[in-house]
């Protein structure tokens, strides 16, 4: 049953949260006087790969963190298939920004991947051979099987990002949220990550990634969500990723040449 709510821009607004793997309503987050994210609605399409884009400081990461409950928003809700995120954590895997942790932490690659199994293991559950096999398999999917025993500080940026992705894979989630998974990684890693994400999508999972590189949006993603503190646009790349909308989001920060390139790549 769909409930007809108030009309917005003359269109009837339908409550489609029950079908969406991640629906955000009225999200407002502030770090000080100025809101970083203001009254943002977002409805992620199931089984799609969505890019969250916007200029620096537009609130992309903040929106994800608030939706996940990592930050406490001033207002707003986030639901997974219509139910509060806090009750649906088993359906979600989150990959934070690589630079958000101290890679000097005394632990090995395999231990980081095993952290993804914490919801299964609980406080004192024993790590069994099946858990280790699962972790090893996830490492293999990102091409890191030979690094299982390495200390994480010895990895390159790209390798660290792959380990984070392997940890998310170990969670066996339905919704994968990634914060800038391609930031500071080598070309081979970028390829490896996107192929893993596409295979997740093809298996019916939903992928949402904060993304920086406008030139690859059309190639990598199905949908795009454009934010600059407020929501600017949302929808399939072909409809929402247009020069006019980007100009609105980025203002003068996009050079005309860039715009042309985007226009061409978006077809």
């Amino acid at each position, binding site marked *: 049953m769909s409930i007809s709510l108030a009309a917005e821009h003359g269109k009837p607004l339908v409550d489609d949260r029950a079908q969406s793997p991640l629906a955000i309503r009225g999200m407002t987050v502030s770090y000080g006087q100025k809101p970083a994210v203001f009254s943002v609605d977002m409805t992620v399409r199931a089984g799609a790969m969505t890019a969250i884009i916007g200029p620096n400081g537009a609130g992309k990461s903040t929106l994800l*963190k608030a939706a*996940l*409950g*990592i930050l406490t928003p001033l207002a707003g809700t986030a639901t997974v298939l219509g139910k509060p995120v806090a009750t649906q*954590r088993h359906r*979600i*895997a*989150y990959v*934070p920004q690589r630079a*958000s*942790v*101290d*890679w*000097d*932490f*005394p*632990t*090995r690659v395999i*231990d*980081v991947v095993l*952290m993804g199994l*914490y*919801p299964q*293991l*609980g*406080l*004192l559950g024993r790590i069994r051979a099946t858990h280790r096999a699962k972790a090893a398999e996830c490492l293999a999917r990102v091409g890191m099987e030979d690094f299982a025993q390495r*200390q994480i*500080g*010895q*990895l390159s*940026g790209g390798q*660290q990002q792959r380990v984070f992705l392997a*940890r998310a894979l170990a*969670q066996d989630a339905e919704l994968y949220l990634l914060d800038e998974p391609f930031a500071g990684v080598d070309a081979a890693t970028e390829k490896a990550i996107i192929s893993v994400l596409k295979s997740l999508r093809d298996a019916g999972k939903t992928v949402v990634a904060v993304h920086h590189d406008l030139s690859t949006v059309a190639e990598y993603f199905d949908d795009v969500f454009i934010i600059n503190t407020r929501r600017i646009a949302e929808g399939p790349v072909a409809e929402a990723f247009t020069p006019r909308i980007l100009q609105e989001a980025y203002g003068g920060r996009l050079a005309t040449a860039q715009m042309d390139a985007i226009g061409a790549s978006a077809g």
Partner: protein
Amino acid sequence: MSGAEFVPLSLVPMLIGICVAVACALPGNFLVLRKQALIGDAISHVILPGIVVAFLLTGAVTTWPMLFGAAGAAVVAVVVIEAVVRLGRIEPGAAMGVIFTAMFAAGVLLLEQSDTSSVHLDVEHALYGNLESLIWLDAVGWSSLFDRQALAGLPVELPRMAATLLFVAAFIALFWRPLKISTFDEGFARTVGIRTGPLGFALVIVAAIAAVAAFDAVGSIIVIAMFICPPAAARMMTNRLEHQLLWSAVFAVVSAVAGYTLAAFGPLWLGLSASVSAAGMIATLSGIILALAAMFGPHRRRGAG
């Protein structure tokens, strides 16, 4: 040295030293990795006014009121530090520095203004404790360990510190996984349902309990040193958190045993008559171990980034 001398005079202080050192070093590993090492320092300073107030209210130096006073002061400090960070928008290290020196200074003033001359409570005691005075008068030798009557005369600090060590170790064993995950990656920890706020608070409370229990027996110098030196040295011996905790416990025990022995007998070996402060020597040794680990530890150079 014979058992008849060692057991009554040195065994108990040594065991208490070991319990204190390990009870502080274990949570210290997490505090150091969370860049909160100063919290141990802060706690051991802020409890002084709490202990003095408890003494002024009860008029006696007794265990439980002092523990409650110290715990109360620690909680007040945590709340005030948090308030200074949030309201003043000051970084946590600076806020801690301001609050713990201010509270320690207030404790010293209170101590000087009040009549504590009749009891064993003064600034020196607060710094060095009185490890050497915790002797076991009922013991006559190793056989006393199996003598119920003699065991009843054990200084109360020993069972209290042993219980504290057990409590600290049990907390870390039980919450090992959430502690490890949230120390490494707090954002991720929240998304898998770990309540990182209460857990971080619990870690500080456990560290505070260790510090308060240790304070009376050994003073604040050992407590500060043991929160930081053994964990920091242990980090340079291994790249695995599990092994780091074991190394930190080993370093803590070595500091306590060797430090006590050197303090009690070192000056004699040098031909001097007096002994030096055990607390000071234990803390110094832990610092020397840290320096050695920094120079020769196998994992002192780590990959950048």
